[in-house]
């Protein structure tokens, strides 16, 4: 049975640099790095020591709060360096990859015959548990709480997002296997949201929802809110299709293979296109001879919620996209009052993007104004499809009023749900940061 999700509120940001549908197989990077900060809320306990040899799938570190949650090495090779930050916090574990890759064998499994407990344990030992994230709080799922449902968004609506239909083509068997396995982890339903004419619509054992409308229709947070919103005390789990493919391949072959097809997008790429890469790959290797790195912002992820990385940084663990856009670190004469034709605006205040809804813009990273107190009202609501008062929730999060945070919908949101309101914010407030910090506080205080 399918239930359609149509949203009207939102905003499609059309940018220059859509990835062309050709895939280059990149050669193996020489260095990989896994960054604990990619797994928000995890305190890592190191297993791998500098100089140790590891196989792909061997544990590098585990979560201090739950020792069953292991974080695997994406490649086989030698741990060359553990980078530490302030107070000896682990920032990254670097691995020099071997020329020939060796995988730890976790054994072939028959998903249909596994019990829930077996599935769980298999995900733990193989290091696949971090693929399962939870709402509320948008962190790696707590295995001790039973989810009321599992949500999978197979529709990407973010600006320049990788086309999942393209990147995951031919992986139907893996997807189905993974879904068969993880659907045992919940008493409730597994909801898959798909775009029009999607290959994912043929999956069995799930409830399919057809999604249409502007971004954030593809955000799993939007879909949860439309299908089965989270109430106090409830937990839902979220997995991405590309991570399901990894789980599926693990069950079918016994190998943990973190290779994926990622999109290189944005105006600073000479040829925006797709490329295969393994999680944690070095950015300079993946973008080699394609990137104009002069005054460029490189982002692991999309322009709304991705993380800024250096050219000598590494691909984020969950990301299937690298975006490169120009830095906007220049002054613009009378930029605040002259008519604007080359930028996007949600208003019509001498801005003309409303005249050309299909034009693709080459936006840079300039904030187009300074940070101010909240002044304008009613604009966030136009791009925020959840049944939540966005400004009131943000203010509750800012003043850390736990009762209000709870009452106004704090359990239902993740930072990415506030990416569009942050984009259009006239006062240039850091919405996603406010939400992230508020969720961390809620998690700490309310559990």
């Amino acid at each position, binding site marked *: 049975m399918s239930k359609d999700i149509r949203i009207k509120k939102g905003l499609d940001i059309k940018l220059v640099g859509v990835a062309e549908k050709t895939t280059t197989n990149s050669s193996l990077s020489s260095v990989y790095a896994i960054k604990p900060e990619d797994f928000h809320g995890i305190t890592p306990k190191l297993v791998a020591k500098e100089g140790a040899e590891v196989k792909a799938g061997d544990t590098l570190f585990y979560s201090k709060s739950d020792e069953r949650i292991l974080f695997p090495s994406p490649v086989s090779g030698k741990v060359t360096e553990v980078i530490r930050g302030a107070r000896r916090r682990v920032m990254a574990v670097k691995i020099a990859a071997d020329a020939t890759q060796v995988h730890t064998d976790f054994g072939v499994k028959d998903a249909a015959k596994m019990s829930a407990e077996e599935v769980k344990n298999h995900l733990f030992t193989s290091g696949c548990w971090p693929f399962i994230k939870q709402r509320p709080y948008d962190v790696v799922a707590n295995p001790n709480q039973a989810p009321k449902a599992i949500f999978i968004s197979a529709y990407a609506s973010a600006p320049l997002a990788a086309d999942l239909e393209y990147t995951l083509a031919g992986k139907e068997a893996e997807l189905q296997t993974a879904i068969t396995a993880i659907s045992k982890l919940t008493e409730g339903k597994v909801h898959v949201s798909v775009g029009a004419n999607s290959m994912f619509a043929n999956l069995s054992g799930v409830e399919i929802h057809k999604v249409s409308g502007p971004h954030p229709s593809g955000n799993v947070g939007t879909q949860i809110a439309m299908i089965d*919103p989270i*109430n106090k*005390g409830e937990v839902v789990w979220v997995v991405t299709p590309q991570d399901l493919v990894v789980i599926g391949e693990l069950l079918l072959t016994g190998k943990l293979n973190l290779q994926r097809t990622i999109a290189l997008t944005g105006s600073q790429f000479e040829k925006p296109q797709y490329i295969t890469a393994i999680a944690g790959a070095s950015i300079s290797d993946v973008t080699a001879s394609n990137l104009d790195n002069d005054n460029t912002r490189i*982002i692991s992820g999309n*322009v*709304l*919620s*991705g993380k*800024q990385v250096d050219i000598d940084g590494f691909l984020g663990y969950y990301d299937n996209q690298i*975006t490169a*856009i120009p830095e*906007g*670190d220049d*002054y*613009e*004469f*009378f*930029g*605040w*009052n002259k008519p*604007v034709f080359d*930028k996007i*605006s*949600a*208003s*019509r*205040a001498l*801005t003309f*993007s409303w005249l050309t809804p299909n034009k693709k813009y080459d*936006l*840079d*990273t*300039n*904030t*187009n*104004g*300074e940070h*101010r*107190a909240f*002044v*304008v*009202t*009613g604009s966030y*609501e136009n791009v925020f499809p959840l*049944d*939540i*008062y966005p*400004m*009131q929730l943000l203010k509750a999060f800012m003043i850390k009023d736990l009762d209000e945070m709870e*009452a*106004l*919908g704090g359990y239902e949101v993740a930072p990415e749900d506030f*990416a569009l309101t*942050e984009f259009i*914010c*006239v006062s*240039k407030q*850091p919405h*996603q*940061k406010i939400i992230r910090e508020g969720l961390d506080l809620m998690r700490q205080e309310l559990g």
Partner: protein
Amino acid sequence: MSLKQNLHNLKEKYKGTKMAPAFNAIHTFLYLPNEVTHGGTHIKAADDLKRTMNIVIMALIPCLLFGMFNAGYQHYAAIDGSLRDNVLANFFTWDNLWIGIIKVLPLVIVSYGVGLIVEFIFAVIKGHEVEEGYLVTGMLVPLIVPIDTPLWMLAVAVVFGVVIGKEVFGGTGMNILNPALTIRAFLFFAYPTWMSGDKVWVYDAVNRTGTADAISGETILGSYAQNQEVIYSNWDKFFGFIPGSVGETSTFLILLGAAFLIFTKIGSWRIIVSTFIGAAVMGLIFNGIVNANIITDSSKFYGLMNTNWWEHLMIGGLAFGAVYMATDPVTGSQTNKGKWIYGFLIGFISIMIRVFNPAYPEGVFLAILLMNVFAPTIDHYVVQGNVKKRLNRAKVKTA
């Protein structure tokens, strides 16, 4: 070295010092800053607070220009009543504009000058940036005062309004009362003889009292409140060829401004529409009372109660208040449902005060200030509706 580079070097030099906010205010006036995003979204939409405020100022410019011509027109028409026979020929003249230049421009200059000095002082003392709210306030203030307001009075009121109305709450975005109306209210309560009556609305009216050819400089509301006949046609009222505060007489231009604000998505159409609806409803109620013969023409309220409901919408400050004052996003209701209630009550109460307060037959600014105070309460109940929905949902699921 270019101006851009020079300013950049100065900015770096003064970074972190006391004077940095003052310098930044001037710098960012000339150049959009070179700030880039870090964390959060990597791209940002084109508009900032300056652009938003600038749009409101642009919407006010026609009212200001009209007010300048009207200043001269009302002055000369008071001396020579025959000028009113052919308004169009006698309105847009250099003589009229000249009176506007010598009477209205000083009001604008004092309003901006004093207000911005106070803003800069507070920014430097408290170390926050000079925020843009005053750009609009500074333009609103000269438009809502009588033409003969002494400049020193205006200066005192602006200082009061900016400090007590805004800065003590933390500056733009934090204030509870609309700063421009706080300034207007201060003037009204501190210097009432200069703010009401029949001698203040037309330039130099005081000096003409007693002369044979002088006609009264009474506003329409003042005439109605005293159950007098009004000499102006409905078209005069609509287009604004009448005495009144500097910029609020032309309902036509105010509606054009409203259309511009709504089109640019800067002004809330919900508040504007609901304010007019609220005023119309109250007007209809009063018309009904008169029609039902509940009061007679001997009543002191008869004149204004008997005024057609649609006429109420274009006389006095109602339209100006609805479009430029009630829509202030900081002091108004913030939720969309709340905006409907908030606007409706402003319109409703405006006409009520207008009718029942013959000493000063104008209720808009008091109604808006009153509703400013209640806006958070309205929002509270609207938001509680959403909270309740969430609680009910949880109960249904666990039951």
